[in-house]
Structures are given as structure tokens and as C-alpha cells.
């Protein structure tokens, strides 16, 4: 009868077998993790962002703020109508624009523009912003998110592709150049 302290041949085989399974599991974990984390790694840097057109500049009268919609640049077959996104386009004058995300900077609800009072109001928790996107009142800690824009050949295009939230890289870009209050 083998001593409990010494390792029997079968005991060693069990331990080696377990070790082998551990190694196989670790090896399998690599592709599994890469698969699970693909939404994070795929968009490293700003890979999700692309320039998308909002239409002709002439569709946006000077001094007014209009709702525009665009298709998200990253489309999957099952996305359905969720690829459409709305944004607020404010044409200040000439080729000077501000393009605001529809999402409130508080918790992402869709803000509505009230032309008469020059305010954006959020229906969820009562965030309010001025016409230039800066915070007016309510729970938001900052102004509306802005998309980078370009005007070329009479078309206005914005750099979009990711839902703007307080933590996204696009939002961080905004904070470096706060909207002129």
C-alpha cells in the first residue's frame, strides 16, 4: 500500500492529466477572449469613425438649426432601422456649422430643438442646452456632443460611427475645444 506522502504512479498521471487540461484551456482561452473582445479591439483608435454626408449645404438655412439623418457607416445585415441616426445641424453662417449629437450628454436620450427659445431640451431628466450646444441647466455636466465636420463641393460631411457617450474618444475630442459659449 503506497504511503500517502509519496506520489503514486496513478496519482502522478492524474496530476499530469489535469495540467494538460489546464494548458489546453489556456490555449483555447486566447481565441475565445479575442472573439469576445472583438467589439473593443476592432474599433481601436477611431477605426469606427468615417466621414458621412448629411446632404447639401443649401438644405440648411443660415442662422437655423435643423434635424438631419445619416446612415451609420458600419452596417451589419441584421441592423435594420437602427443604422439610421439623427443629429442637429446648426448653420451659423456661410460654411461655419455646428453638428450636435442627438444624444443628451447626461444619459443619451434624444434632445429636441426649440427654435423660438433657442434651447435644446431633453425629455428624460430635464437637461437643457443653449443654441450653441453649451449647457444651460439640468443634470448634464457638459454641453452637447459635437461631430467634426467638413464642407466640400457644397456638401456637409461629419465624422460619425460611434454612439457619443461621456467616455467615448470623440467626446474627449470635444472637451478639448469647448463650444464657444
Amino acid at each position: 500500500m503506497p504511503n500517502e506522502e509519496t506520489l503514486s504512479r496513478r496519482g502522478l498521471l492524474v496530476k499530469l492529466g489535469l495540467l494538460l487540461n489546464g494548458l489546453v484551456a489556456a490555449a483555447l482561452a486566447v481565441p475565445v477572449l479575442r472573439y469576445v473582445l472583438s467589439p473593443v479591439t476592432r474599433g481601436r483608435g477611431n477605426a469606427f469613425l468615417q466621414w458621412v454626408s448629411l446632404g447639401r449645404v443649401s438644405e440648411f438655412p443660415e442662422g437655423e438649426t435643423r434635424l438631419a439623418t445619416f446612415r451609420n457607416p458600419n452596417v451589419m445585415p441584421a441592423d435594420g432601422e437602427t443604422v439610421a441616426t439623427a443629429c442637429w445641424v446648426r448653420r451659423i453662417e456661410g460654411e461655419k456649422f455646428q453638428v450636435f449629437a442627438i444624444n443628451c450628454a447626461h444619459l443619451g436620450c434624444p434632445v429636441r430643438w426649440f427654435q423660438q427659445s433657442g434651447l435644446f431640451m431633453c425629455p428624460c431628466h430635464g437637461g437643457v442646452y443653449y443654441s450653441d450646444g453649451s449647457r444651460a441647466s439640468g443634470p448634464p455636466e457638459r454641453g452637447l456632443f459635437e461631430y467634426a465636420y467638413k464642407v466640400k463641393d457644397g456638401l456637409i460631411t461629419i465624422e460619425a460611427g460611434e454612439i457619443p457617450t461621456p467616455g467615448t474618444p470623440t467626446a474627449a475630442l470635444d472637451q478639448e475645444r469647448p463650444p464657444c459659449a
Partner: protein
Amino acid sequence: MRVISQVGLWLERRLQLAAATRETAEHRVPRNTASWFYVFGSAALVVFMLQIATGILLALVYVPSAAEAWSSLQVLNHDIALGWFIRALHGWGSNFMVAIVLIHMVQVFLFGAYKFPRELTWIVGVFLLLMTLGMAFSGQVLRFDQDAYWGLGIGASIASRVPILGPATVRLMLGGPIIAGATLSRFFALHVFAIPGLLIVLVGLHLLMVLKLGINEWPMPGRIVKRATYTADYEELVKKDGAPFVPYAVWKDIFFAAFILLAVAACAVYFGPFGPSGRPDPTIIQTAPRPDYFFLWLYALLSLLPPSLETPALLVGPVVVILGLILLPFLFGEGEKSWRRRPIAVLSILLVAVSLGTLTHLSGYTPWSPHMNAWSGDPVPERFLKGTTALERQGALVFQVKQCRNCHSLGELGGQRGPTLDSVAVRLTRDQLIRQVIQGGGNMPAYGKNLSPAETAALVAFLATLHPPGQLPARNWALEESQAPAVVPGR
């Protein structure tokens, strides 16, 4: 009859489960636990089984694709015989399950059942509660309507506030950069495979511990739990004053299970299924998304917290609450079990109940949110316009057109974000009104850029008329001192 008993014998020969089943069913429980207070755990299990059954039935038709989920719910509601009823059973079952789990938890807490040696049973229960809430939230996402879409946006905004890992967490949660097909697919996987699988395992563990450790005895004031003696005391109690669970205690569980199932079915028939609300089209922005019932308190809390406290509360709050619940049996593992000798326990429950109740009640009329259509829809009550000058009427028009009404009510109609203005002239002088309108402040936007001097003059003229008939409007006595009479007449 002989065939049945022969089949039974044949099975028993192979399975050998009869003895174990009988032993489990007839395990002795303290007589005083055969109480209506002890039926909530089994009721939660019964509703969970209802959810599994109705969930499988719904999955026969539901399409977990962002392009088709909403339409497949319409098919369930309108085209399939009694599809609406199965949806309603599942939806109401969800609400009942959250409610029963909460009631069960309160009962267990007040009866001191989390104390030695049932600490792990409590901790597993805490995770069962979290998973039940996870099922409720992911279920709302599968409805994939406007509320689900914007609810996911709120979830993403909360997740994005995690330091450093925020953006990665959002992408993991959404399955990509935006709320779209991948988002629904992963919530489907969570709701249908991951969380229910874990729930089944943990429910099994939870029940196993109830059997191994025995059901918590009815707490008697003065009977103190001590680690050294409890187990022996409990065995003594069960021996002296115990009875077999089946049938002594189980009949109440059975009756309550039937009652709960009937209540779920009655709600399903009477109120019908939940939604779906509008299509999940992000370009339809005329929407005011609301969470389901059991998350309404959170919706209210997020509106009422000061902005600077919000991120810490969102990120630290849940950790503190969950840690507190997990540590509870270790911090208070011994001592009195009876609620009669635990005033702090009773007060904590009352405090939590009153807070959650108040927040839920507030979310019913969202006083923090502007009323988006008040400016164009709510009439100015006649009594505020009677006998006013042209300028004052012009001011009433400015008041409506500039959307002041969205946040300020007149005659109980309009937004409640700002103070009601029925008697604003009593509180503020003309100069103060002008300053408030132009500069804003106290959570009011400044209107200086959006009002012409003529509009401001008209608006303030109107506001200055808003005082009850018997009360004088506010005046600046410092300015008017020279003209003021030495003694105010009538005092």
C-alpha cells in the same frame, strides 16, 4: 393499476430515487415555520418556472434580430392565437418575480434568517436578486422598441462613466460602436442562455442549503443565535417540536403557488402584454423613454441627484449596496433574530421602502422634465388674462411662444421643472423678474439672447400681473422709500 406499479418498480430498480425523494419531502421542519410568511421562496421558484415555460413558448415565434424583433412582437400580439396572452404572462410574470423575490428578501432579513449558519444561503440569494433584475432589464431590451433602444443608450452612458475602461465597456455591452443588431443578439444570449443557466444552478444551490441547514425557525425574542450552540439547539428544536415538511408545511406553499399563478394570469388577461411601444427607429426623436416599473426609482434618482454626485453615485453606489448585502451575515451573524428586538433592521427596511416608493411615485409625473408640448398645447387660464392690457397679453403670448410654459406651470398646467408662476409677482419685483429672465440662474437658462427688449418688457409686464387678488405684488421699498407712506395703510 398493476401496470402502473410495475412501471414504477422498473424505474425505481434503475433510478433508485424513491428513498431519497421521500427523505427530502418528509424532512422535519420546526412546526412554527408552517406559516404564510414562509411561502415566498417557493412562490419565486414557481414564477421562475412559469417564466421558463412562457419564455420557451415566446422563442418559438420571436426573432432576435434588430431588423425583425419588433415586427415579430406585432405578429405575436395580433396574428398568433393567444400570442398576446403568452407575452402578457411572461411580462407580468417578470414583474411578479421581482416583487416576490424582494418580499422574500425582506422577510428573510426581518426574520434574521441570514445569520449563522445560513450566511451562504443569503449570499447566493443576493446574486439571485441581481440576476432577477438582470433578467428584467435584458427582457425589456428584447422588446426592442423605442424604450428599449433609448434605455440601452442610457445603459451605455452609465457604463461609459467607468474610469479608463468606460469606452471598452460600452463597446462590449453594445457589441459594437452603436446600438444595433449585435446589441440585441448579445442581450438575447444573456436573457435566454447565460443568466437563466446561472439562475438554475444558483437556485439549486440555494434550495440544497435550505434542505441541508434546515429552514430558519420562527424567531423568538430573546432566543439568541450563538455559533457554538446554534446547530445543537436547532436539532433539538426540530426533534422536540418538528413535523415532516410534506404534508405539514407544504400545503400552504401549494395554495400560495396556485394563487400567485392565478394572479399573474388575471393581470395578463386584464392588463394585456407590455408594448411594444414605437419602432426602434433612432430618427424618431419625439419620444420620452421610460424604464419598466422596477427601474423607475433609478430613473427618478438620476434626475434628482446633483450633477457632481451622479457619476460617483452610479459607480460607487451599486458596489457599496452589493458589498453591504454580502457582508451583512458576517457582520451580524449572531445575536437576536426577532424583528421585535431589532429596531434598526426594521427602520432600515422602512427607510428603503419609503425612499424607493417616493422615487417611483415621482417618476409617475416626472416633475424634473420639461413638458415638451406645454407651450403649444396648454391654454393660459382665463383668470390670468381678464382685464389685462394689450402689452400684458402680448407678454402672455411671449410666455407661451418662448416655451416658458414647458418648465413653469400656470393654473396647475405646464411643466414642473421650475417653480409655478401663479403668484410669481408676490415673490419677485419687476427688476428681479427682468434679471431672472435675462440672466437665468438657479437652474434656469438665460433668455437674454433670445428675447428682444420689447419681448422682455411684454413678458415682465405679464408676469407682474401674476398675484392672487388679495395680495399686493412685490415692490422694492429701498427704491420707493421717498414715496412710501410712513405707515402702511391697513396694518
